[in-house]
């Protein structure tokens, strides 16, 4: 099915929905209202129990010195001290900066490579459907399980990665350590993240490219616009909302990033790759400083919630197209 006809189909469905004929009210069986609540309530209940109640509990704990590994210790209300300590703790800010750098670099790489790939696939060469599916595979796999194996690929001497780099550059494979050196460790994570999630950005960009109606290009051909000009004045702006969507989605996911970093570097060497999730895990589940880590969790919640808000607005804009 072509894309513009798809859009028209959808528009037609939406139009049909906007003016539904009045339903015949049924007395038999449950009323619509009852069914609506009956259907929605279980989901809401589950989310209340597993999401909202714990969230409220976290807020309450964030004002205490509670420790999950000291059930017998007295719990003291410490007011805002946890928040004060966190927001003035240089280590927390370093973790936030580290996180921001990861988000920036991995998204930049993913967007550039992902868009390029989408553009190439949109050339519709023979077998492109098959190769697209092949490219998509990494993003479906478990970041933890595959990330763990990357640790092996990154080993100096025995790992394949260093060997391939040395094959192409002539650098001695044991002369650099991707995971252990202060300057390379952050890149080792960016590389795996890019390997894994470029297909994601590619897929969304591809949808963006396909959403551009042919007649716009046809009109440009008539105006004798160069391919270069067509690319910058038609392709990129028309696909931009989709790229933004991909960036936002990856932004939120990378902000939460835990699995891969935990398995690749565990935050090391030193604290060079310690992203916010790793700091939080260490505080909450190794040092068992439950109160302060609850405060940290709330700070992260607020940050993600802000992102989510922007995200949903953007989502709706893409949908309106």
């Amino acid at each position, binding site marked *: 099915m072509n894309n513009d006809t798809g859009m028209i189909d959808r528009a037609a469905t939406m139009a049909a929905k906007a003016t539904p004929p009045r339903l015949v009210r049924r007395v038999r069986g449950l009323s619509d209202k009852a069914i609506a609540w009956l259907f929605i309530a279980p989901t809401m209940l589950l989310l209340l129990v597993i999401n909202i109640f714990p969230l409220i509990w976290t807020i309450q704990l964030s004002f205490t010195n509670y420790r999950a*590994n*000291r059930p017998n210790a007295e719990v003291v209300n410490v007011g805002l001290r946890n928040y004060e300590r966190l927001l003035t703790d240089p280590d927390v800010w370093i973790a936030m900066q580290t996180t921001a750098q990861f988000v920036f670099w991995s998204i930049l790489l993913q967007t550039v490579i992902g868009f390029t790939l989408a553009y190439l696939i949109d050339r519709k060469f023979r077998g492109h459907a098959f190769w697209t599916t092949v490219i998509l595979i990494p993003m479906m796999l478990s970041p933890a399980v595959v990330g763990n194996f990357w640790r092996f690929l990154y080993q100096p001497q025995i790992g394949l990665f260093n060997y391939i780099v040395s094959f192409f550059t002539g650098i001695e494979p044991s002369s650099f350590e991707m995971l*252990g050196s202060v300057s390379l460790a952050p890149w080792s994570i960016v590389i795996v993240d890019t390997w894994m999630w470029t297909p994601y950005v590619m897929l969304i960009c591809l949808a963006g490219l396909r959403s551009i109606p042919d007649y716009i290009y046809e009109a440009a051909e008539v105006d004798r616009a160069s391919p270069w000009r067509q690319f910058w004045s038609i392709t990129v702006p028309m696909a931009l909302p989709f790229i933004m969507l991909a960036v936002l989605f990856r932004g939120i996911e990378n902000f939460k990033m835990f699995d891969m970093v935990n398995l690749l570097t565990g935050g090391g*060497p*030193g*604290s060079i790759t310690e992203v916010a999730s790793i700091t939080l895990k260490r505080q909450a589940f*190794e040092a068992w400083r439950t109160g302060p880590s609850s405060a940290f969790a709330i700070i992260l919640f607020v940050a993600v919630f802000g992102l989510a808000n922007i995200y949903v607005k953007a989502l709706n804009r893409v949908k309106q197209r």
Partner: protein
Amino acid sequence: MQCLNKIALGVSAAALMAAASMTSAKANELTLCWAAWDPANALVELSKDFETKTGTKMNFEFVPWPNFADRILNELNAGGKLCDLLIGDSQWLGGSAENGYYVKLNDFFDKEGISMDDFAAAAVNAYSTWPKGTPNYWALPAMGDANGWFYRKDWFEDPAIMADYKTKTGADLAPPKTWDELKQIAEFFQGREVNGQTVYGAAIFTERASEGITMGATSAMYPYGFKYEMTPGAYDMEGAVNSEGAVAGLEMYKALYKCCTPPGYTDSYMGEGLDAFKSGQVAMMMNWFAFMPGMAKDEKVGSVTGFFVNPGQTIAASTLGGQGISVVANTDNMDGALAYIKWFADPEIQKKWWALGGYAVHNAVLNDPAFPSSQPFAGDFLVAMNQVQDFWQEPSYASLLQAMQKRLHDYVVADQGTAKEALDNLIADWTVIFEDDGKL
């Protein structure tokens, strides 16, 4: 898709029912939790005797060292029922005793006639008692251990290498007695061609996530005079943790890391060290005594491996390892768990434990005149166990360890700041933790 959908629905319904029925009671079963390493597998072999004698089915839950503390302390805190018996680290005693995670064993020992005097005193103090030095027993010493060294005897005894060492350094090539000698030997081997392969000086602990670099660096710092407190129990760390000796010891460890480790050993612990040593990459390896029985049996390097006690510098000292076996208070099979302890404390079983590769610390084993010659590392083991020093065993040990891991790794591996700064910062971190605990 329709067909797939039906299959998915059917399978998931079945899975849900299976999940519901999975929480069946385990009648005559015991689960023992420990770290995943050589001695644990030997314990599985040893426990077959207990299974035949009592008809109890033994399950084992072994977690690799880097995840061991994390996962098992998580399990204890969660009040889980995974472990009936736990061979836990010495540093966990404080927290587990105070929170009631372990069963206090004094009454049981009295009733069954198990005497702690039958075990090496240092081991009982380290692995069983809390508060330290009082006769309150929370575990039976299961496995004595200390940090020691492995070396390539065939290289050390190679005439050509020995002669070269003599001309280069003026000294005889032999297992080092001090950290200075150790570094000199490591530098000598670093980058050398042995049997056509480039080899390196030493594999040491640099692991970041759990306890690796702390256990490794303290092995250098204790001999230089590093202490935790000026006066025991007073938490006065200034002048002890950052003493000149402590700084010198830490600088020595970093120097050894910088000069003489194989490439890529930036986050390595026991396992990585063993790999380096077995593949013939290093002349020396720091590692726990626990691995010596397995190494001596190794089909490739077993016959050419020698062992030595952690070298001294100003004093003789070794970093303590080893664990006691405790009964988890939450167990559903208390009688079975206690029966296992009783069986394990039996001198005959302790002897078999040593024979299979576990470090029994029962006097019936250690005081046997044949003991020092029973294995090439047995004599060294007795020496090491008499000079051990341990990390804090405080209930806040995890936070204390985490701070030390960070400060040491930042300094040694990530090249941040100086040794003095690292230790000063460590005192600051520890002070906050002790203040939060109300101990300062």
